[in-house]
């Protein structure tokens, strides 16, 4: 049914308690079951992405882990404590970047970061943090005058200024331009290299693929897949598709042995050439869309030819 993380223990040579451990987490709003039994484990020093469509329960899950929300059922340990009852010492060790922010508008970047640094026992140097998020030339700017992307980077600065062991990033790059996203990813990698554990929610696949050691795909409040981005969905979901044209009609076949199939096709062809031949590996996006139940209907699994032309243009558009 659901992939749990227990099988992954041996692959990561980590010792000690995990940064996050969640079992059977449930949360209901009225008659909507927002989180319906999430199991998740995040090891220290790892970047885990929670991926899923809007309304899949990502933010609810994260906000329960952050201690903002109560839960209906399930066991939750974050840095060894229950977020619902954990106190200030625990908050000193986490960093939270919330999904939206429009507060703190009147202070300058330097003032805000320095002020928040004062809340923590062992903060990072505010100047270094401001430089790290790329706001070095905006120190004296009032936060209300920052652009959306700059504002978001300020949020990240506030989330990491306390030198947290675990950082929650809730859709951190929504609304970023491509350059800003690249710069932001660099920043997240730097944090990881410092040993920070990061739990990230996003609905950008490339972001998850770029950053995450492991991805948990959420759908309707439950984890439907969990694993490194390049292995997501298991081997079956990643079998390549071979397409070719035979007798004037497009054909496609999903196979785990594409080379054998291509050789067979070549042998069958009178001049050894197979018209319209291509071997396509499903992209992370294909796998993901299938996992969340939104796979395009025009994807033939075996031998069918439905929608092959549309599928081909899709493939060509990808790098």
């Amino acid at each position, binding site marked *: 049914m659901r992939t749990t993380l227990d099988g992954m223990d041996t692959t990561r040579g980590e010792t000690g308690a995990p940064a996050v451990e969640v079992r059977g987490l449930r949360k209901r*709003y009225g008659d909507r079951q927002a989180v319906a039994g999430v199991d998740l484990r995040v090891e220290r020093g790892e970047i885990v992405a929670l991926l899923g469509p809007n309304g899949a329960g990502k933010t*609810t899950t994260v*906000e329960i882990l*952050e*201690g*903002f*929300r109560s839960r209906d059922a399930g066991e939750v340990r974050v840095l060894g404590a229950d977020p619902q009852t954990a106190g*200030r*010492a625990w*908050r*000193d060790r*986490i*960093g*939270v970047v*919330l999904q*939206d*922010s*429009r*507060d*703190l508008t009147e202070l300058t970047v330097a003032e805000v970061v320095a002020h*928040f640094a004062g*809340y*923590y*026992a062992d903060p990072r140097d505010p100047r270094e943090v401001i430089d790290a998020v790329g706001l070095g030339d905006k120190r004296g700017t009032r936060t209300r005058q920052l652009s959306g992307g700059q504002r978001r980077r300020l949020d990240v600065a*506030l989330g990491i200024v*306390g030198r947290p062991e675990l950082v929650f990033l809730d859709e951190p790059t929504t609304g970023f331009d491509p350059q800003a996203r690249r710069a932001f990813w660099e920043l997240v990698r730097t944090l990881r290299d410092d040993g920070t554990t990061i739990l990230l929610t996003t609905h950008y696949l490339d972001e998850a693929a770029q950053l995450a050691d492991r991805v948990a795909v959420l759908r309707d409040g439950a984890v439907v897949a969990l694993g490194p981005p390049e292995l997501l969905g298991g081997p079956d979901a990643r079998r390549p598709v071979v397409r070719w044209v035979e007798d004037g009609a497009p054909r496609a076949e999903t196979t785990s042995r594409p080379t054998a199939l291509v050789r067979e096709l070549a042998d069958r062809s009178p001049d050894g050439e197979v018209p319209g031949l291509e071997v396509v590996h499903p992209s992370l996006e294909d796998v993901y869309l299938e996992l969340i139940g939104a796979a395009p209907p025009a994807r033939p699994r075996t031998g069918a030819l439905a929608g092959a032309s549309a599928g081909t243009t899709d493939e060509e558009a990808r790098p």
Partner: protein
Amino acid sequence: MLTGFQSLAISIAVERDDGTLKRLRATPLPAVAYFLGKVGLVLVTAVGQTVLLLALAALAFDVPMPWDMPDGAGRIATFAWVFVLGCATGAVCGVGFSSLPRSGRSVSAVVTPVVLVLQFISGVFFAFFALPSWMQTVASLFPLKWMAQGMRSVFLPEQAVVLEPSGSWQHGATAAVLVAWLVVGLVVGVRTFRWRRRDDG
């Protein structure tokens, strides 16, 4: 004293609405520190306002100041406790009231009428004795009437006591009512305070 009520009710509700409180909640900042900060804000504002008001009264309108009066020391003492107790009560009630408005945009609309009506019936705009007696009765339930009465006892000449409906300054009752509201406000404030918006789960 109204400063405390109005500014806290509004600023806390706005900070709840725009996420400041939620952000603070995620930091190790103790809640006590947040409220002490708000108390400091109220004190500084209230003292500043009072100084300006008294300066204007003394310099521009030649209002006799308590320290020029024969029983000045007692009046200043009365001023001090009414001021402190009034500020505290106002601030605490403001924290309690801040949970009422649903969004940051509606705060002023919800808070200001309450303040205006209280001022109207408590003898801030009009001489209290000139108000209908039912209005005096209603006003007696709220702290503002008692603060105003306490301040009259500080700034008005002794003979003005005959204009009080009860015929005395009622310092004991003033203290009792203010303390009662302080306690009620504290309990309500502690029980209803939220770090998050209502629509935020």
